[in-house]
């Protein structure tokens, strides 16, 4: 018997199940480290370093408390002389025979990451969209060569030029500044943004902006009111790629930032507790670090899925 309920171009039930199985296995394998990191964030310091590792444990917010505070160890007599703790986290810290000395640098580093990540993403997409529009619509001398030149900036790993950039940044005073990092990440992202967005702009029929120009708008007005809204898909996809890069970038952040503009990636691994790495605080920091980029991706996901198949379907 031939199954006529499905079209011959559809895959069969068996191959679909097989595909689903492979995807599930792949997802589980890739999610194990992330799950482990999130679990570690909810372990106590002692539980996080026990061997063999504990899969079932008593959850604790010690990691999060340690992440946001600096603490000093005090003698038993000193602790007893203090007034009773006012908050749950003070109590938690005192049970470890310590007192809170002040806030940690994590909040500042996290804010730096947000400023630099979103700043660089916005700038890359904005400049990329302008350049892509120009490449898509105007007659530009040596257009193909320029496009290739822009792409060629990604033909080596960005870190290969770390030394000249380090020296340059020190000379012009951009080292360890937010602006410096935003510019750097924008430069790295821009070639991707221009290429990706040009593809999307090419897909938008010229008639739309011509109609807007006839309706009384300048080319710039038509670009912002008509072209950009229609390139939303491309802009979302490009923004996600740029955001993931700027948010996760580690090497340049280690090299160029120290105090003022240090981002979270170089900071988190350096969280040190007593007697070595404070793994539960690192787990907590990493968990919090994952959240913004996840929200960003989920919010734009709808566009991303459509965006990656760009060119496949018109409009």
């Amino acid at each position, binding site marked *: 018997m031939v199954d006529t309920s499905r079209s011959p171009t559809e895959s069969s039930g068996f191959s679909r199940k097989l595909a689903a199985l492979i995807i599930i296995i792949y997802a589980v394998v890739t999610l194990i480290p992330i799950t482990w990191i999130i679990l570690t964030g909810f372990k106590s310091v002692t539980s996080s370093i026990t061997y063999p590792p504990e899969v079932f444990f008593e959850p604790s917010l010690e990691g999060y408390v340690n992440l946001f505070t600096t603490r000093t160890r005090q003698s038993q007599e000193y602790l007893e002389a203090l007034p009773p703790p006012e908050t749950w986290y003070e109590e938690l810290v005192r049970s470890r025979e310590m007192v809170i000395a002040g806030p940690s640098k994590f909040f500042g580093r996290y804010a730096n990451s947000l400023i630099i990540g979103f700043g660089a993403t916005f700038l890359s997409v904005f400049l990329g969209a302008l350049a892509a529009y120009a490449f898509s619509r105007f007659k530009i001398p040596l257009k193909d060569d320029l496009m290739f030149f822009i792409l060629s900036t990604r033909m080596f790993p960005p870190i290969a030029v770390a030394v000249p950039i380090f020296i340059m940044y020190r000379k012009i005073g951009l080292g360890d500044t937010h602006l410096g990092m935003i510019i750097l990440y924008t430069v790295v992202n821009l070639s991707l943004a221009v290429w990706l967005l040009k593809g999307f702009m090419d897909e938008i*029929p010229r008639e739309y902006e011509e109609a807007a120009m006839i309706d009384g708008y*300048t080319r710039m007005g038509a670009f912002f009111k008509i072209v950009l809204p*229609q390139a939303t898909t491309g802009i979302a996809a490009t923004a996600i790629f740029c955001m993931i890069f700027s948010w996760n970038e580690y090497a340049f952040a280690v090299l160029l930032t120290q105090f003022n503009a240090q981002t979270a990636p170089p900071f988190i691994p350096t969280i040190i507790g007593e007697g070595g790495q404070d793994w539960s605080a690192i787990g907590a920091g990493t968990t919090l670090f994952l959240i913004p980029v996840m929200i960003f991706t989920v919010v734009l996901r709808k566009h991303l899925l459509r965006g990656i198949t760009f060119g496949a379907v018109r409009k």
Partner: protein
Amino acid sequence: MSEIKLENLEKSFDDFVAVEKSDLTIQDNEFFVLLGPSGCGKTTTLRMIAGLELPTSGKILLDNEDVTFLRASQRDIAFVFQLFALYPHMNVKKNLAFPLKMQGFKKSEINKRIEEVSELLRIQHLLNSKVSSLSGGDRQRVALGRAIVRRPKAFLMDEPLGTLDAEFRELMCLELRKLHNDIKATTVYVTHDQLEAMSMGDRIAVMNKGKIIQFGTPKDIYLKPKTKFVGSFIGSPAMNFIPIHHSIEKNQNKIVINGENYDVPQSFGGTNSSINYLGIRPEKMFLTDKKGIPGVVFGSEYLGARKILTIKSEFGDFKVRVSNQVNAQIGSNVKINFEPKSAIVFDGTTDKAIESRYIKLN
């Protein structure tokens, strides 16, 4: 409303000349059609009038004001695109309001105008719909609405019915013409479809290879084509051409074809070309038992009251429009004759019609 004048207009892209030295006056309130095969420069001409393309040389006058190098936004002209170009991220109402917002109208005035236009075009019920949910004809109406709502000096339309299906196109043809009669706006309409051009235009300009070859009323252009190209492009089926292998004398009023004399209109000019063509419309040809050109019926298209026969002869293939009463089996031998009074002689070298008692060139 206003008059559009093109003076010596020329446009070339690198080596390719898209529009060659064109002069044209489009009168106030006129429905003017630019007709020609694809790639003949008609759309380029229209885009130059709109300001979407700048001419290489020449002038464009709008109401006697030189607008040649003005931006599209400064010309006060509306354009309806073939693909409508409705802004897909706005609903119908916002599409209609878009050109008005730029001109700084008050909200109440914008709403009033949208109401007027949507009533005129019968799209009131669509105002809150998304553009993507509209049918082809409704999109067409909205696109027209967006053009009308601004009350511009002139409308330019670039094959606006090209994407509609045949039935709908006919309906929209009527609607467009009615709309023009109502609002009396100067309209320039570009099409490659001669039926559209004939049924809507007050006057038609036929273009080919970047040149305006003839302009006049649909009747003039159909009955008195100035060149062989116009004769073959206008009319469905096209004009028939019988080759004549000798030159034409001045004042000649007889032409011999296949040993028979035909009384053609007396020619005023002559030609030295060794090959010329006699052009005859399919409805001026008929089958006969007496003298005529022998041929074989090759094809027969049944069109209700009439049918069109394709007949192969030693002078080429002819299309003959006959009543469906005429019995002509495919493959049978027939003789064709024609009414010589409306025949036009075309110079085989220059392609131009030779002036005669029937056709006068200006």
